[in-house]
């Protein structure tokens, strides 16, 4: 069964081709076809997962290119990390396919939608199966393409077009870093295969400065893809895409690819303390920074987008403090509860046709399943005790503490507090309180959407138990089992960290209740007294404006300057040269007047000249 692993990305790709090929004819059947394809993919993945669980690491490679003595291969690699990601991606993708049947019902381009979804799924599965960095990079770009196509799915909206372009360009900035890192790595180790890279890094064949440089360059790629601090602005804009797409790509899978990249290249980071510190600091800063913005957004998807950025920062922080298991574990749990939150938000949008939370309220009476699912997701992400987020967050906090990064620890704790605050602000504003509009004609989502939300809610509730300090750290043990480079997968966590995490989480929920449900604070008054801060937060710290003023204007100015140089200097020179030869030609052609006698005279004059020269020099 495990030999069929290469089929996993092929199935959704075939579905993509079929759907695009017959996009008109297949409109009514497109969703069933795509769901069937993703179900087959999921079934295959499940079979391969269990096979790899029993067999351990499995590699299958075909030679693709031979450059000199270096063989570049194409193939599949299955180790604990890969198969975990594989299972996660195909499972969430399957659920999203099912959910989209309800959400996208009646859309005239539904087969194109499912086709793109298939392309993305295929690319993402290919990415996690890659045994070498080149294949990884190719699929990395392909998921970027899938994301671009799906963000711009409503291309007739200008904002969606702009968002798709922005996402593509911003991630491309990161990808340049990744590409340079990849080339440097190839130069240094003569191989792009992960196992070869691990051996030469752990054997110390690459000098320390170079390791740091490569690690940071690769991390820049991860920053772009995972929406970390300087390159995060595309992710909130990416919410222009359909909500199931946001759940799949911009919450659960693609944006986590950056964290996955750091996890895959972990030996590189282990070898460089500076790179680890950079990863941890960027992650921690992003976590708290995005959380503060999430506090004041009024668009339900924007809040979730900033929450995603913040949680990805959390994962990066874990990676940066040697919490490999913690980071991957949080990636795993986050995928479930964030997908759940997005799907619940999608259900709200589906019912109300608005994304503004100021127009919502009191929905828990009408949308019972959605409300319940959202509550579970919000509790899980806030780290409410015994839910999945609780265990992964606690693991991260323990890892930060164990690494001795006390400042980062308090930053992470603050971010956790803000997370539960903004999540429950959202919950109370959307589902509790008085309805802002009449809710009479509002209906709960169709059964397919409800079912996926319930399934995800069950996972968000229980998935944390694969790795708990009480019942055993199965996931951590399994992840670190074959990876000899990982020292100390699990950190013995002091009880007080768990207590602190609980208190912080409950504190955030309580404060949100106090402000938004209890209405003990006059919000208008509060906004006015802190109007500067409020405006700064709601405009995302003016980062977009800053980029507009510096990079966009700067690039455009540079472009204009080059345009004028091109117009006046370069093409002026070209015109001059061209004009010179043109005038020579003109003059020359005037002598070609057809008068035989003139030709004869000129020929004779030439002879006379030659002879005069001959006489004057007395020879040649």
């Amino acid at each position, binding site marked *: 069964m495990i030999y069929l692993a290469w089929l996993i990305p092929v199935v959704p790709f075939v579905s993509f081709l079929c759907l695009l090929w017959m996009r008109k004819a297949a409109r009514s059947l497109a969703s069933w076809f795509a769901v069937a394809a993703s179900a087959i993919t999921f079934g295959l993945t499940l079979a391969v997962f269990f096979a790899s669980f029993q067999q351990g690491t499995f590699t299958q490679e075909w030679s693709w290119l031979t450059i000199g003595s270096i063989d570049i291969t194409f193939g599949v690699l299955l180790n604990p990390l890969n198969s975990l990601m594989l299972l996660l991606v195909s499972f969430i993708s399957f659920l999203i396919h099912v959910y989209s049947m309800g959400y996208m019902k009646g859309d005239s381009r539904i087969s194109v939608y499912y086709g793109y979804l298939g392309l993305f799924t295929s690319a993402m599965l290919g990415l996690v199966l890659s045994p070498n960095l080149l294949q990884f990079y190719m699929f990395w770009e392909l998921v970027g393409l899938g994301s671009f196509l799906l963000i711009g799915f409503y291309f007739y909206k200008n904002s969606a077009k702009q968002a798709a372009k922005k996402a593509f360009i911003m991630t491309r900035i990161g990808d340049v870093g990744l590409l340079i890192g990849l080339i440097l790595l190839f130069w240094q180790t003569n191989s792009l295969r992960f196992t070869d890279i691990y051996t030469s890094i752990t054997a110390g064949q690459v000098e320390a400065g170079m390791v740091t440089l490569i690690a940071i360059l690769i991390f820049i790629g991860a920053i772009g893809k995972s929406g970390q601090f300087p390159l995060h602005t595309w992710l909130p804009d990416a919410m222009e895409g359909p909500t199931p797409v946001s759940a799949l790509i911009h919450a659960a899978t693609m944006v986590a690819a950056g964290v996955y990249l750091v996890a895959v290249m972990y030996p590189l980071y282990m070898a460089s303390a500076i790179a680890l510190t950079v990863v941890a600091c960027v992650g921690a800063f992003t976590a708290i920074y995005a959380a503060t913005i999430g506090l004041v957004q009024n668009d339900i998807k924007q809040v979730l987008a900033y929450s995603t950025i913040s949680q990805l920062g959390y994962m990066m922080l874990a990676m940066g403090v040697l919490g490999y298991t913690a980071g991957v574990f949080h990636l795993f749990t986050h995928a479930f509860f964030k997908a759940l939150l997005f799907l619940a938000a999608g259900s709200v949008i589906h019912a109300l046709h608005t994304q503004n939370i100021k127009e919502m309220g009191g929905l828990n009476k009408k949308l019972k399943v959605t409300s319940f699912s959202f509550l579970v997701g919000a509790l899980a992400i806030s780290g409410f005790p015994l839910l999945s987020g609780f265990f992964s967050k606690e693991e991260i906090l323990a890892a930060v503490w164990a690494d001795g990064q006390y400042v980062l620890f308090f930053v992470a704790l603050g971010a956790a507090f803000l997370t539960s605050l903004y999540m429950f602000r959202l919950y109370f504003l959307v589902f509790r309180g008085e309805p802002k509009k009449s809710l009479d004609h509002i209906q709960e989502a169709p059964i397919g959407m409800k079912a996926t939300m319930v399934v995800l809610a069950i996972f968000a509730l229980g998935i944390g138990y694969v790795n708990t300090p009480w019942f055993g750290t199965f996931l951590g043990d399994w992840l670190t089992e074959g990876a000899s480079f990982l020292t100390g997968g699990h950190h013995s966590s002091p009880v007080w960290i768990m207590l602190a995490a609980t208190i912080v989480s409950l504190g955030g929920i309580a404060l949100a209740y106090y402000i938004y449900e209890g209405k003990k604070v006059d919000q208008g008054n509060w906004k006015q007294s802190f109007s500067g801060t409020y405006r700064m937060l709601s405009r995302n710290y003016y980062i977009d404006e800053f980029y507009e003023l510096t990079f966009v204007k700067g690039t455009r100015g540079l472009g204009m300057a080059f345009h004028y140089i091109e117009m006046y200097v370069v093409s002026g020179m070209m015109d001059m040269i061209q004009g010179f030869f043109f005038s020579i030609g003109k003059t020359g052609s005037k002598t070609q007047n057809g008068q035989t006698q003139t030709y004869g005279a000129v020929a*004779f004059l030439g002879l006379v000249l030659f002879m005069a020269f001959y006489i004057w020099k007395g020879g040649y």
Partner: protein
Amino acid sequence: MPMQPYLIVALILFCIGLFGALTKRNTIIVLICIELMLNAVNLNLIAFSKYGANANISGQVFSLFTITVAAAEVAVGMAILIALYRNKRNVNIDKMNTLKD
């Protein structure tokens, strides 16, 4: 040197011929002038074959060839000229410039 008068006559003849060939409008005159230049050359050849530093008969043989070729050339030239005249009703050389562009 007894050769000099021959050469001077030939030179004068050649220059008259060249001047006529380059300046006269009537193509017949131009053809006649070309004959003049050829005969100047013939004169030179014969002078050198008689008084040259390496006098021998081949100069005279050459001039006989030249006379023959000149006769043939005049025949062909006149034929072309008559054909042109039938088309254009004109024998002026400066009007025969249709190949210029």
